C-alpha cells in the first residue's frame, strides 16, 4: 500500500438492524495524516459507522477498506493498525494505568523487550508518567481519556478512531486532549473523530462529514461547507459614517448581500474575507471607518442552519 492511498475508503456502507436502516449507503475516504470529523446528532449513525470500520459489527451492504484491509474478513490486520478510543472509555479499575496498558500490549503481541519502553513513553506523552503505577480507580474522566490515547500511542497505529473524545471533559482537559490529537497528525497518523461538540472540533478537523439520520448530508472543509450552506459564509461588519456606502460596498466582488443593521452599520455577506476591499471602498467613498470585523463561518452556524432547513434536529434514536 502506497503512502498516497487512503486509510479509509468506504463505498455505499449500509447497516440495518432488523428492518431499520441505521446507516444508509455512505461513501467517503480519509487520507493519511488527515483529521476527519464525523459530526451529527446522537443516533445519526456515527458510532455504528465506526464499529463497522473496526469489524466490531457486521456490514449489511457496501464495501469498506481500512488501512488497506477488509474489516469483515481481515479484522485482525485492521485492528493491529488502528487505534480505537470508545465513547466513555473504561479500564480495569483494580489495575494500575501501566498494568492496563501492559494487558493491551500483550493482546497486541508486542515483544516483551519493547513493551515497557513503549508503555513508559506513551504514558509520558499524555502526561500520566507520574501516575502510571496508580490504580485507575482514582483517575478522573480526563485522565482515563488520556490513558485511552496513550493506548493508541503505544500501539503505533496508522489510523486513530476517536468516538466523542471530548464529551464530558472540562474546557481545560478538552484543550489538552485536542492538542494531543494534533500531535498524532504531525506524526502522519490519520485521525477520525466523531463529535456533537462543534466549536471544539472545528479547530482541529481538516475535513468534516455531517451525519443526518444515517446519511452524510454534507462533507468538505469547514469554509467549503460555509459557502455551501450559509450562502456567503463570511459576515463582514462595518461601522462607518458618511458617503454613499451601501452602493459602493455592494460592488465589491464576492459580496452576495448587504444589510443595514443600524445607522452607519452594515453587514456584508461574502464568500471570502473581503475586509481589505471593504476598507478601500469606505475610504474611496470619503467616509470615516470606525469598525471592520469579520465573522468566519462557524460549524455551529452551518450545523444549525442545515438542520433548520432539513427539518428539526434529526431523529433522536438511542445512541
Amino acid at each position, binding site marked *: 500500500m502506497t503512502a498516497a492511498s487512503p486509510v479509509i475508503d468506504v463505498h455505499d456502507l449500509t447497516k440495518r438492524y432488523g428492518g431499520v436502516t441505521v446507516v444508509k449507503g455512505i461513501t467517503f475516504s480519509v487520507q493519511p495524516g488527515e483529521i476527519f470529523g464525523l459530526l451529527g446528532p446522537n443516533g445519526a449513525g456515527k*458510532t*455504528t459507522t465506526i*464499529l463497522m470500520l*473496526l469489524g*466490531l*459489527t457486521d456490514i449489511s451492504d457496501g464495501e469498506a477498506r481500512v488501512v488497506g484491509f477488509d474489516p*469483515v*474478513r*481481515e*479484522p*485482525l*490486520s485492521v*485492528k*493491529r493498525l*488502528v*487505534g*480505537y*478510543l*470508545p465513547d*466513555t*472509555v*473504561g*479500564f*480495569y*479499575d*483494580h489495575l494500575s494505568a501501566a498494568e492496563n496498558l501492559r*494487558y*493491551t500490549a*500483550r*493482546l*497486541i*503481541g508486542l515483544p516483551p523487550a519493547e513493551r515497557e519502553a513503549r508503555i513508559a513513553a506513551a504514558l509520558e506523552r499524555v502526561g500520566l508518567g507520574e501516575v502510571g503505577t496508580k490504580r485507575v480507580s482514582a483517575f478522573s474522566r480526563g485522565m482515563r481519556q488520556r490513558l*485511552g490515547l496513550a*493506548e493508541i500511542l503505544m500501539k503505533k497505529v496508522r489510523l486513530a478512531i476517536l468516538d466523542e473524545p471530548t464529551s464530558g471533559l472540562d474546557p481545560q482537559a478538552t484543550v489538552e486532549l485536542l492538542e494531543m490529537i494534533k500531535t498524532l497528525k504531525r506524526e502522519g497518523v490519520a485521525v477520525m473523530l466523531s463529535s456533537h461538540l462543534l466549536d471544539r472540533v472545528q479547530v482541529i478537523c481538516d475535513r468534516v462529514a455531517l451525519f443526518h439520520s444515517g446519511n452524510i448530508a454534507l462533507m468538505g472543509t469547514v469554509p467549503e461547507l460555509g459557502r455551501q450552506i450559509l450562502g456567503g459564509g463570511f459576515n463582514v461588519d462595518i461601522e462607518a459614517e458618511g458617503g454613499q456606502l451601501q452602493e459602493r460596498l455592494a460592488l465589491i466582488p464576492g459580496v452576495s448581500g448587504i444589510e443595514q443593521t443600524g445607522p452607519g452599520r452594515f453587514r456584508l455577506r461574502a464568500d471570502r474575507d473581503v475586509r481589505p476591499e471593504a476598507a478601500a471602498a469606505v475610504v474611496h467613498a470619503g467616509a470615516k471607518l470606525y469598525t471592520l470585523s469579520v465573522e468566519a463561518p462557524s460549524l455551529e452556524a452551518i450545523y444549525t442552519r442545515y438542520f433548520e432547513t432539513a427539518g428539526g434536529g434529526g431523529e433522536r434514536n438511542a445512541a
Partner: protein
Amino acid sequence: MRREGSALQGLGVVVLKELSDHLTSARMRVLEWLVVLTAIAALYGAIQQVRDTTAEDLFLYLRLFTTAREPLPSFVSFLAFLVPLMAIGLGFDAVNGEYNRRTMSRILSQPIYRDALLFGKFIAGVVTLSISLLAMWLLVIGLGLLLLGIPPNAEEMLRAFIFLLVTIAYVGVWLALAMLFSIVFKSAATAALFSLGLWLFLTAIWPALATFIAGAVTAGADQATQITVAQALARLSPGTLYGEVIAAVLNPATRSLGPIFLSQMQGAIPGSPLPVVESLMIAWPQIVGLVAGAIVLFVIGYVVFQRQEVRA
C-alpha cells in the same frame, strides 16, 4: 466466509489476566475460606464416624469423602452444594462486567476475536476452581493420613482421582451456566439472581417436583415405569447427575444407579466391591451428561455472545 488468523489468538493472554484477577480477588478469598472450613468440618465428622463404626473396611479412605456425622453433611454433599456457588461467584459477571466497566469495545478493538475472550474467561474460571478443588482434595487425603494413620491403596487413589475429575466437570456446568447468564443479562445483579435462583430450583425443588410430575404423567402405570420416569426427570439437574456419579465412583459396592429387579441381583454377592472400570461403566452416562451439559451451555453462550452488539 473465512476470517483471517486463528480464533484463539490472544487466548493465553486473556487466560493469564483473568486467572490473576480471580486469584487476587476478594471474592475468591471468601469462597476459598468457606470451602476449606466446611471441608475440614465435614472431614472431622467423617473421621469420628469412621473410627467409631468401621473396624475393617477395604475402602476406608473413600469413606472419608462420603461419611456424614450429624449434624454435619458429608464432604461430597458439601461439595455438591458449594461447587455451584463458587462457580456462580466467579462467572456471574464475566461478560456483563466488561460491558459495565466499558472495557469491552476497547478490548475487542485489539487484534483478537471474541472467541479468545470468552474461551479465556471460561478456562481461567475452570483453572481457578480446579486449583482450589485440588487443594481441598489434597487436604482431605493428607488429613486422612494423619488422623487415620493408614495409607490409601492404589484403587482408592484412582477412585478419588476420578472423583476429582468429575467434580471439575461439575464445576464446568455451573460456570458455563453462570457465564451464559452473564452474557444474556446486561446487569450483573440480574445474572447472579438468575443463576442462584436456578441453582436453588435444580438442587432443592426439582428432585421433589420430578417425582410429583412423574406421578402425574404416568398415573396408572406400574411402579417401575413411575420410578424410571421420575429418575429421568430428576437427572435434568446436574446436581442429581453428580450425586449419582459420586455414588458409583466412591462406593465400589454400587451396582446400579436405577431401579433394579430382584431377578437381576441373582448370583450377586451383596456388598462386594466392583472393579474401578465397572464402577465407571455404571456412571458413564452421567459423566458424559455432565460434560455434555457444560459444552451445550457454553455453546449457547458462545453463539449469543458472537451475535451481541458491542455497543451496550
